[in-house]
């Protein structure tokens, strides 16, 4: 049962598919344009805790705790010719599935949940990295275009299984 109209669901779906394509094709500058000026981009540290203690996500420690301004610096770094961690670049594939779309708290906003499986391969190493997470996004319509106002990346890892996060989730 859809919580929104089919058209709205389709718009959110298309947004996420387009976004994944931009990331996998290394169009980070265009990806950045998908964010609102007041965007938040968060990936909290997750701790392995007992069931009764909840899901273990920290509200103090993060792998990413970004604004549009700090994402701008990260993208600008990738645009230099000295970003060794991504040159030669990682080959990534963002598999985005289980998309759930609901009305947001504000008018012109949608609350979109999706699952992410990120495949990452570097160099000619036969070994590859997989990161798994749920993404909780808030999309806001600005000038007739959907934009990302908030993304929270909820990892399925208590220890990251990749040597660095020079790619975005």
């Amino acid at each position, binding site marked *: 049962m859809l919580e929104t109209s089919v058209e709205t669901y389709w718009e959110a779906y298309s947004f996420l598919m387009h976004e994944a394509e931009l990331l996998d094709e290394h169009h980070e500058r265009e990806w950045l344009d998908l964010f609102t000026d007041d965007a938040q981009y968060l990936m909290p540290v997750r*701790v392995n*805790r007992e069931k009764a203690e909840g899901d273990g996500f920290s509200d*103090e420690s993060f792998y990413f705790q970004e604004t549009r*301004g700090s994402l701008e610096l*990260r993208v600008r770094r990738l645009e230099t010719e*000295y970003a060794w961690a991504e040159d030669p670049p990682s080959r990534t594939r963002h598999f985005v599935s289980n998309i759930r779309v609901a009305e947001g708290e504000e008018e012109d906003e949608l609350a979109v949940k999706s699952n992410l499986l990120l495949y990452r391969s570097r160099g000619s190493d036969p070994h590859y990295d997989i990161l798994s997470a749920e993404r909780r996004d808030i999309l806001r319509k600005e000038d007739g275009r959907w934009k990302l106002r908030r993304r929270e990346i909820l990892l399925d890892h*208590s*220890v990251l299984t*990749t040597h660095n*996060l020079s790619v975005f989730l």
Partner: protein
Amino acid sequence: MIGQPTGEKQILEVLQEAQRSLNEDGKLLAKVYNEPSIFDLEVKKIFSKTWVFLAHESEIPWSGDYVLRRIVDDSFIVTRDEDGEIHALFNMCRHRGMQLCRSDAGNSSHFRCPYHGYTYQNTGKLNGVPFQKEAYGPEGLDKDEWAMTTAPRMEIYEGMIFASLNPEVQPLEEYIGDMGWYLDFYLKKSPAGMEVIGPPQRWVMPADWKLAAENFIGDGYHTQSTHMSTIKAGIMRVKSPAYLKEGVQILAGMHGCLFMGFKPGSYLNYPQSIVDSMLENLDSDQVELLKEESIMPLNATVFPNTSFLHSSMSIEEGGKSVPYVTLRVWQPMGPGKIEIWSWCLVEKDASDEFKKASNRSYLSTFGASGTLEQDDAENWSGQTRVAGGEMSGQHYLNYSAGATHVEPIPDGEWAGPGTAYPKNYVDFAQRHFWQTYFDHLLAGEENGHAGS
């Protein structure tokens, strides 16, 4: 196998030759970067002998708090008991050896083994054994005898909890020794002390622990190449890529660090309250370095695998630099593989606003996603990869920077302890790390150069 590229030589002979080559010629055999048979020796002769950092006191502020930590493959529950005392308990039931605690952090007065139900207090004392009389007779078990095993030694330095598998290890204070004077810049800028911000970032890297440790002990030279992207992008707000050329490299006991300059009077942009407390709380010689020389330790390694970094970076586009301290452990998971544990440390009495900003500055630039550390990861894993082959057994690396033209600062002209070199593009601290390393691996070996 290490024997092959060098004929019939055994591992110790290879290490002795590597030690000689480093000491006499300033060349390091690349093989020591990544070699399984050397790793086994490292576990026995370094990680089972020295002090190893486990946790910060502020991670377990309340009675009952605990965190799970490791020394290589040995798991310890670091607890704070009902009286506030801290314990490092070996995480293995005394009955059938099941891992007692399987959560990485929490609060509990007891740990109950899932296997047969032995229950221990967070002091390690055995508290309960199910069906005790049926299993062990009317007298039951001697609960003192069957308490949890503790780490052979556990001591605390400025809020930092260390343990050692070696009951004979020297006291921690003595082990840190002269390095303490330099650690003060990280840990004693306020009388309130430091606290961690949340749980550590943890990630796995196909890199050898020694490469991260030697980088952090004093590699100022790499910054102009490795971290160029962050200078170009306006993250590291410096005038020239060679900003770290001038400074001071320190050898202190088994440890070392590197000083960087800052704009006079800026104190890395610390808020005024922390500037006031650092000038008040540090000793007069330390304050003189801050006030007159405008230098402060940037990165440091406490042998073997604990490192510190003090820096100040821009978080937002065009934004002012915000200072931070990060503490990390390069935890070996095997030859050429580490789990990195990374914390942000901040003065307990700093404002919440500064704590948040400092943490953001840290995680933007260091840690798994850090714009500087991303490229360090590329280097350390690349070094490890190529050292894993056979050619590294006959490939020697240049550790001679500074050897021909840089002399230590004469006694009396440098206020701190240890040996100070007045430049940063030098290899003295890195060589010192490897000499300390060889001294440990070859200690007690016949024909070894231990202690030389």
